[in-house]
């Protein structure tokens, strides 16, 4: 079939940012998947609670200390995370490099405290269904902390190579910032379930 040229695309940028980037949409879709998984975990928690004669089942409520410290660290991390996103949009590479390193530390810190959090649950996963669902929720969220930390460390490493001088990397940083916000925000309902519902 014959064709005629109707549109010239040569002036377009080589890579879109924000919602013009496929990676941004991919990250958003991934968050929808993971968000559904968290929602199912919480639904299981509520379901088991609704059929239980007492809650917590045969255990003291979890100790508040480590979980609350993790929550505070995660909330505090939102500030540098937001700054890194802003610097990425401003294309301030040096600041982005430093900020991403800081975010690595903010990924490690809650994981260290989390080790104590499992202990403070006051119940093992194999004690009863209450213990099982607590470990499931905490384990599910910890997996997200670990994977995002790994992602952030690799990204930080890339940012110190020749590949850093690239719009695309700054887009990667912005997507990583968005995903960390997601990891922090999904923690809040889980924190409420694990630590506060047993105290109601």
């Amino acid at each position: 079939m014959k064709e005629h040229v109707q549109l010239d695309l040569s002036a377009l940028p080589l890579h879109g940012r924000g919602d013009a980037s496929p990676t941004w949409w991919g990250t958003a879709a991934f968050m929808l998947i993971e968000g559904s998984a968290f929602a199912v975990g919480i639904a299981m928690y509520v379901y088991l609670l609704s059929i239980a004669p007492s809650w917590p089942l045969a255990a003291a409520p979890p100790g508040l200390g480590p979980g609350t410290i993790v929550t505070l660290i995660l909330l505090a991390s939102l500030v540098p995370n937001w700054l890194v996103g802003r610097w990425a949009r401003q294309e301030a590479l040096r600041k982005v490099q430093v900020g991403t390193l800081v975010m690595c530390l903010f990924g490690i810190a809650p994981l260290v405290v989390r080790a104590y959090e499992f202990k403070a649950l006051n119940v093992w996963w194999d004690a009863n269904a209450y213990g099982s669902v607590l470990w499931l929720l905490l384990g599910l969220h910890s997996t997200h902390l670990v994977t995002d930390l790994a992602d952030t460390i690799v990204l930080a490493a890339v940012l110190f190579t020749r590949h850093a001088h690239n719009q695309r990397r700054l887009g990667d940083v912005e997507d990583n910032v968005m995903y960390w916000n997601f990891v922090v925000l999904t923690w809040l309902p889980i924190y409420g379930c694990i630590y506060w519902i047993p105290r109601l």
Partner: protein
Amino acid sequence: MSDSGNPPVSDAQLERPELESRLAATWRTPGGLWGVLSTVDHKIIGRRYIVTAFVFLALGGVLALLMRLQLSSSERRVLSTDWYNQVFTMHGANMMFLFAVPVMEAMAIYLLPLMVGTRNIAFPRLNAFSYWLYLAGGVMLWTAFALNMAPDVGWFAYVPLSGPQFGAGKRADIWAQMITFTEVSALAVAIEIVVTVLKQRAPGMTLQRIPLFVWSMLVTAFLVILAMPTIMIASTSLILDRLVGTHFFNPSEGGDVLLWQHLFWFFGHPEVYIIFLPAVGMVSTLVATFAGRPVFGYLAMVLALISTGVLAFGLWVHHMFVVGLPRVGESFFTISSMSIAIPAGVQVFCWLATLWDGRLSFRVPLLFVIAFLITFVMGGLTGVMVASVPLDTQVHDTYFVVAHFHYVLIGGAVFPLVGAIYYWFPKMSGRLMSERLGRWVVGLLFAGFNLTFFPMHILGLMGMPRRIYTYSPEMHWDTLNLFSSVSATIVAAGFLLFFVDVIRSWRHGPLAPENPWGAATLEWATTSPPPSYNFPRVPVVGSAQPLWDERDSVAVACGLRVDRRELLITSVVSAQPQARDSSPRNSIWPFFAALASTLMLISSIFTPWAMVWGSVPVLITLVGWFWPKGTPEDEG
């Protein structure tokens, strides 16, 4: 400037022959094993997916024949009880997880980028990864079957039968891990579909101009994204109960067996629409082409697709009417189950109106549409029947239900699928399938199917339960069962003939003209089979039926680079050009990542620590995958 030091080359500077050879050099898949393992071409991967899914269909069909042989008369001893349990579980799990869902996504993998006018699917490496993972999951399941350790707990794996107390050995774990393989792969493809449809449409293809098949796959992809996490959490919980002693489903320690049913069907019911909605898109495509006019009620069709998708999440409890739930709940789910017949009815009437007004061309694909309409409407009617609690209570777990869901799944999804293969085969191969054999295939499948499954309604009403390996002669079920079993060979003959036709036509079929059916959609605006880069120049869309409205000359865009894999990113609603982004090159890393994931997932059936040490190779392969290589594609 690119890292390789070569200046960028735009297609605007090139005449057609040079343009095509430059594009081919950039987008090609090299030959040899390395090329096979590292390609990210959506057409090659889509083709692989389709072939693999049909192999699983054939294997699952053999299992069905085994069951029909066993049930052909009372007290037969072809299969032992244990083998029978494995065979019906394998049949269901294989058909749902290894055939139906993957084959529908596979058609989208092949067709969507062509239909929206782009050069590759979004995240093509993820696409390659998803195929390898799917293949590994299927091979794992069938290897287990060969070793007499296949799941024997039904495709739904209800606890406590599948739990640690009754499900000894590793059979239920194989089921649960097969879920992980296939769902990760399905979720990956769903993300690709969403992003391809939302961001890679040809300029001018506004939301109102998206072909209905593309719409149907977009809705399906969202169903996958929202439904499949549930089954992944559920199957993980089941493995945890079995492997490390959690108590999610153990009533004596505060767990609950009904929790499993809720989780399973919250996924399992949308699963039905994940299989059916793509078929709706296929039927809409075929109806429009063979009626020679656009589908009547485009907007109504799109809204029906979306509302089916929404309602699909609100009726899972109709699978659980006999477990003793509160009556208010049962009434609610009866209403919601019946209400989904409304969008289905809207679709059926839109198709009928289109056919009514069209100049019909009774080619093989349209014959499949007619077979679909009759069969699916019958399945839909029995669906409305079993949505009512008293009726469902009577026929639950009987062959009535077996008949019902085969009518909606085979009639509703497999007939359109086979019709779609006849329709798009020339696109994939450049050759037409046989019109004469095709008519035989339709006839054999339609007649054989109805003769096999219609008697099951009656058997169900006579009280024959599902999943029994045999029955005694005094039940008087022999005649209908024998009739059904003999008829099943007609279905088998139909599929056999179909496979013969496919294999023969792939090499020897008559060469297909450019647009063999006179279709309206963009996949026919390029050669058949399409080149690695799909379109020499990206089409510009000015209507919902571009090839009907621009018969003389197609509008295209220029300005994309040919020295790197470049494609166009457009805005979500109006498809305005936003960026010339790159598309990843071939890479071996997705294959390695799938290998590493397979090692981790299979090992974790035996030890939970596999999730710890097994994640190291996964991490390494992912870093290899994503680490920038300094190719022109990395320029931003």
